[in-house]
């Protein structure tokens, strides 16, 4: 596609509910990142994939958070037993290069706004 697509755009979950957030990166992009952006804050790194391999998951806040990219394209971020503190915008970014720091840079999606009530 022309850009990074994230769905749903908005998600309201009851506390304790499981949610799944989807990211469709630009076709052919090697690396994929997930970030969490709390209200009034800058985005914070969650996890990084190079193709289907999850090479860095140091930013995942707890074992309730799980991400996958089984075929090296679409990625899903799953949050189990959601808590109010999980309320945030979840941003996905992809890059043609392995790290995104080359000439290709990163392309961000518009994000999914998760509200846990």
């Amino acid at each position, binding site marked *: 596609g022309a850009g990074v697509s994230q769905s749903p755009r908005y998600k309201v979950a009851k506390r304790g509910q499981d949610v799944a957030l989807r990211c469709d990166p630009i076709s052919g992009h090697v*690396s994929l990142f997930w970030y969490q952006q709390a209200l009034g804050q*800058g985005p914070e*790194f969650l996890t990084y994939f190079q193709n289907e391999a999850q090479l860095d998951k140091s*930013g995942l806040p707890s074992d309730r958070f799980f991400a996958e990219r089984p075929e090296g394209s679409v990625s899903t971020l799953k949050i189990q037993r959601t808590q109010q503190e999980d309320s945030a915008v979840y941003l996905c970014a992809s890059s043609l290069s*392995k790290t995104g*720091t080359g000439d290709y*840079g990163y392309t*961000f999606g518009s994000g999914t706004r998760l509200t846990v009530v």
Partner: protein
Amino acid sequence: AQSVTQPDIHITVSEGASLELRCNYSYGATPYLFWYVQSPGQGLQLLLKYFSGDTLVQGIKGFEAEFKRSQSSFNLRKPSVHWSDAAEYFCAVALSGNTGKLIFGQGTTLQVKP
């Protein structure tokens, strides 16, 4: 730990006035440096980036930024602000030799007065 500081949470300027948004980073070596803009409900759009070479970099929408190693700063500037520049601006660093994950500052909200 590496960090990025944007000292100004909120800035208001008049349309046509000049703008400077401050960014300082804490890191032992020279990181890759970025400025992004985010409009409400939108993703992050890259304004400009610095990897090496000329310390004054030009970006889109008339923005420029200057890397000053001695001050660990990467301030964003624009000579004449337009009303459409009102948005949230984020400075970010990526660590060389790493996965390329970005560390963002807290952001600066820019309001433009007519």
